[in-house]
């Protein structure tokens, strides 16, 4: 019979099943009646004859089943029957079923969430054509892609391996589209951007290389689809409209394809503008100066037939040429090619490492859940041994019983799997919609795809088979006659069985998770109270950019002065100071090369240091509560009319001048030859990120080095909400077009604290799951061992055993396993925490609080899990028990 025919017959059989069943019943009844007729004729009365006929016929159900098998479609009907039976059995013990389903839902949910994130961030290619040949140019010696525009042009024109090299930098602009001005993020991209990425516009057109005719020649914007939806309500007439960016008119020429918002996957800009117009958002030098590496990313498709290694070789050759031609501006210029999705290795490497670790942990959790359910199933099979033995004795095959057990297991695992998957889809969708930072257009596109669903279902089935397989041996060994005669045949064994080993493994996993989440929490808590070099409490930030709305540098300086004076006069404000960009503000900090005073050849290789450089007003140090350890702060007299001065941090002072006192009054030079005198030294702080090592920083007075980006740090003990409102009103009165961002200093650190917070959160959640699983595991085992040994315990009590002895007998084993597992887990957890230190600042496992916490947590967990079984063991009434048996 060919496949189609067999399929048809199966379907037909299915459709005709009830009809056939009735037919079959009729026929069998007819047979019995004929036989009874014969028997009656031989002298029996009708009732006896009918009974005799039924006995002679044999196992009616068995033959009916055999007939169904003959009829095809049988596997399906058997399956349905098995399923119905499994549902019935499970419904009889809802507690067991619910526990099992929830356990699996947790474990599979955790796995699909972690895999969903892993899949979205690492496995899934960018949503652009031929993503597999698209690479980012990463520096050979550091994980970044920064380049200057002239270097980009040389790289593009001289290389022979990249089809069409594109570049983009991130810009912020004040957008006025007829309503309230708002700050938006955009990619300033080279003209060839969309063509090189082979993208098609959703609406209108993209700009092309041919639109570039020199500086500010292409006032066009392309909106991203989501920004167009959110802010222009999907209005198709938007194409051709003129909007104002930083007061310059730009024409909307198109809308990008849905889902495309740049090649950095978590960074969602509002629009794209041609890079030749970048001067309208940044500095005019940006497109000219070779040492101004502001372009964020260079990328392109490999030419057909060129391998990655060949391309790297080619780019390095070009880099060496550029370095030879412009030795003043360029250090060593080497490249490697990485994926743009997570900005190459910069985020790619830590994210991959962290997600891989999480994936491992969550699969361990699933394994633990399987171990748990396996022992539950084994315990149940043992408890049901009488039922199983009866079924065996009545002629059911062992295969049939095993099939039944597996059906139950798979049913539970599928139910748990779907529940877990549903929850994880909800969670991933929620995470995708989440915008963790107000100041940054960052969100993670984590929407699950088919791979996640398939994985969840596969995991469910595999785990069902895994824990379903645990009681197999037990069933195969069941001796029906023995069991029916004398009750359970399993005897407590002395050796460590598979179940015990599984439990120890599970407890160890839980302890690892508890340890690492405690380490992470402690590290996080400590990093929140560590010394940043500025005060986090009682501090409010006001950010704006005056150049965006057309202030000339002179007017900007006056305006800044007015703003500060205004804010300082708000009641409750103790001081207000200005800085061009914030330490730990998440902006690209400005760093500068610095030369010793004696150096005359001011070329890059001769630099003495490259500190972060901050431009501050005289009040800043006080407002930010940055401690001056020597010398003086700036005053209003440190302006253009006096020699240049600087305040340096301790690290810089020691590096350049040997010691703090030595630094005062000494000089250093900037690359343009300007000499600065050190007038003060401040404590070290954190500047770029929380986990960084101590690094150099210098502060220069705004009056000598003006800057248009404005961050006002306000020190006040007033309620931040109230204060923010007061500041907002004040600034609106001064200039209604000013786009402002106000937040507490603490809130603004969110960006910096995001990775350690996520790490702590995910470890904490996994740790909780591990704890829940361990509790159910220990509970299951303890409860089972108490119920198995009821009789023995009863006898012991009758013979005068004390409560302590009874408890030891009943639970000693569970407690020993708990101790063994916890110790192993603690040890492994301490090892694993070394990895954590790279994500969570000051995460150290050598912390008595962590050790005590883990021991306490595991002890509580053990107490919690064994409480009910212990109660049960203690309330045994030997008289009743012994009478019953």
């Amino acid at each position, binding site marked *: 019979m060919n496949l189609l025919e067999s399929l048809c017959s199966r379907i037909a059989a299915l459709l005709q099943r009830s009809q056939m069943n009735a*037919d*079959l019943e*009729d*026929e*069998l009844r*007819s*047979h019995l*009646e*004929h*036989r009874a*007729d014969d028997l009656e004729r031989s002298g029996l009365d009708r009732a006896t004859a009918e009974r005799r006929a039924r006995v*002679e*016929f*044999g*196992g*009616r159900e*068995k*033959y009916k089943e*055999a*007939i169904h*098998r*003959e*009829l*095809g479609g049988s596997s399906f009907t058997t399956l349905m029957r098995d399923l119905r039976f499994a549902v019935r059995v499970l419904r009889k013990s809802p507690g067991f079923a619910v526990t099992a389903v929830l356990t699996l839902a947790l474990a599979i949910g955790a796995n699909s969430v972690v895999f969903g994130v892993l899949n979205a961030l690492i496995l899934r290619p960018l949503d652009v054509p031929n993503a597999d040949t698209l690479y980012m140019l990463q520096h050979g010696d550091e994980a970044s892609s920064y380049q200057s525009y002239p270097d980009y042009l040389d790289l593009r024109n001289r290389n022979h391996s990249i089809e069409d090299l594109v570049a983009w930098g991130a810009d912020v602009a004040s957008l006025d589209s007829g309503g309230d001005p708002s700050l938006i993020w955009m990619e300033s991209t080279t003209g060839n951007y969309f063509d090189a990425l082979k993208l098609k516009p959703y609406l209108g057109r993209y700009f092309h290389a041919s639109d570039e005719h020199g500086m500010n020649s292409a006032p066009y914007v392309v909106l991203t689809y989501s920004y167009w939806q959110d802010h222009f309500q999907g209005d198709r007439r938007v194409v051709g409209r003129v909007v104002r960016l930083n007061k310059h008119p730009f024409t909307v020429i198109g809308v990008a394809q849905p889902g495309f918002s740049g090649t950095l996957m978590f960074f969602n800009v509002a629009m794209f503008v041609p890079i030749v117009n970048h001067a309208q958002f940044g500095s005019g030098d940006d497109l000219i100066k070779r040492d101004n590496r502001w372009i964020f990313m260079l990328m392109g498709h490999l030419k057909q037939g060129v391998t990655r290694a060949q391309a790297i070789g080619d780019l390095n050759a070009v880099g060496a040429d550029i370095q030879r031609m412009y030795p003043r501006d360029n250090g060593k210029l080497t490249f490697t090619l990485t994926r743009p999705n997570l900005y190459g290795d910069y985020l790619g490497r830590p994210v991959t490492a962290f997600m891989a670790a999480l994936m491992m942990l969550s699969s361990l959790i699933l394994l633990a859940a399987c171990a748990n359910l396996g022992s539950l199933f084994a315990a149940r099979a043992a408890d049901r041994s009488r039922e199983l033995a009866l079924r065996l004795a009545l002629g059911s095959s062992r295969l049939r019983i095993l099939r039944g057990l597996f059906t139950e297991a798979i049913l539970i695992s599928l139910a748990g799997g779907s529940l877990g998957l549903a929850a994880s889809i909800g969670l991933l969708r929620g995470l995708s919609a989440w915008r963790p930072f107000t100041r940054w257009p960052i969100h993670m596109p984590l929407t699950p795809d088919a791979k996640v669903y398939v994985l969840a279902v596969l995991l469910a089935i595999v785990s069902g088979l895994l824990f379903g397989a645990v009681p197999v041996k037990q069933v195969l060994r069941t001796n029906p006659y023995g069991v029916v005669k004398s009750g359970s045949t399993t005897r407590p064994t002395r050796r460590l069985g598979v179940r015990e080993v599984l439990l120890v493994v599970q407890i160890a996993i839980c302890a690892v998770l508890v340890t690492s989440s405690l380490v992470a929490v402690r590290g996080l808590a400590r990093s929140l109270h560590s010394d940043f070099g500025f005060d986090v409490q009682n501090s409010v930030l006001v950010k704006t950019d005056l150049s965006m709305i057309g202030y000339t540098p002179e007017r900007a300086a006056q305006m800044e002065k007015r703003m500060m004076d205004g804010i300082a006069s708000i009641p409750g404000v103790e001081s207000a100071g200005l800085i061009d960009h914030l330490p730990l503000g998440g902006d690209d900090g400005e760093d500068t090369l610095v030369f010793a005073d004696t150096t005359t050849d001011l070329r890059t290789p001769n630099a003495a240091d490259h500190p972060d450089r901050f431009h501050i007003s005289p009040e800043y140090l006080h407002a930010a509560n940055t401690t001056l350890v020597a010398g003086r702060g700036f005053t209003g007299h440190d302006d253009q009319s006096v020699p240049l001065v600087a305040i340096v941090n301790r690290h810089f002072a020691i590096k350049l001048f040997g010691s703090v006192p030595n630094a005062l009054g000494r000089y250093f030079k900037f690359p343009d030859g300007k000499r600065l005198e050190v007038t003060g030294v401040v404590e070290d702080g954190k500047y770029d990120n929380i986990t960084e090592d101590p690094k150099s920083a210098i502060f220069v007075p705004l009056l000598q080095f003006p800057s248009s980006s404005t961050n006002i740090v306000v020190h006040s003990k007033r309620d931040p909400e109230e204060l923010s409102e007061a500041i907002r009103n004040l600034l609106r009165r001064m200039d209604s077009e000013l786009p402002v961002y106000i937040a507490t200093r603490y809130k603004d650190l969110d960006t910096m604290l995001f990775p350690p917070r996520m790490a702590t959160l995910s470890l904490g959640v996994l740790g909780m799951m591990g704890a829940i699983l361990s509790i159910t595991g220990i509970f299951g085992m303890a409860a089972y061992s108490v119920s198995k040994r009821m009789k023995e315990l009863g006898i012991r009590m009758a013979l005068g055993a004390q409560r302590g002895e009874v408890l030891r007998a009943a639970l000693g084993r569970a407690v020993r396993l708990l101790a063994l597992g916890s110790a192993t887990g603690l040890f492994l957890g301490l090892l694993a925490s070394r990895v954590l230190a790279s994500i969570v600042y000051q995460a150290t496992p050598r912390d008595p609080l962590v050790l005590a916490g883990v021991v306490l947590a595991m002890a509580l967990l053990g107490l919690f899990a064994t409480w009910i079984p212990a109660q049960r063991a203690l309330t045994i009434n030997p008289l009743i028990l012994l009478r019953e048996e």
Partner: protein
Amino acid sequence: MPDQAQLLPGTLDLLILKAVSLGPLHGYGVLLRIAQITGQALLIEQGALYPALFRLVRQGLLKAEWGTSENNRRAKFYELTAAGRKRFSEETESWNRLSTAMTAALAAQVEEV
């Protein structure tokens, strides 16, 4: 009951085909006919007949139709189809070959070897 032989595997189908080839029968009738033609020498569990009957119907060797029996009861009657008749003669022939060979083999004496 007298000593009854266990049925060899696969022979039940052939017996059913033989029984039905002598005229349409209902299930119980098939059983009686087999008992009759084998001289009650074979042990057939009554229920075991039906899976075989359904199998033969599904293979298209038998066809079934409801009718009224000699006891004036409703019963399902089976008769051979053309394919059934053909298969019956083939099976009979192959059984004969097998049984001749078996008989000859088992009857062999030392001097004949």
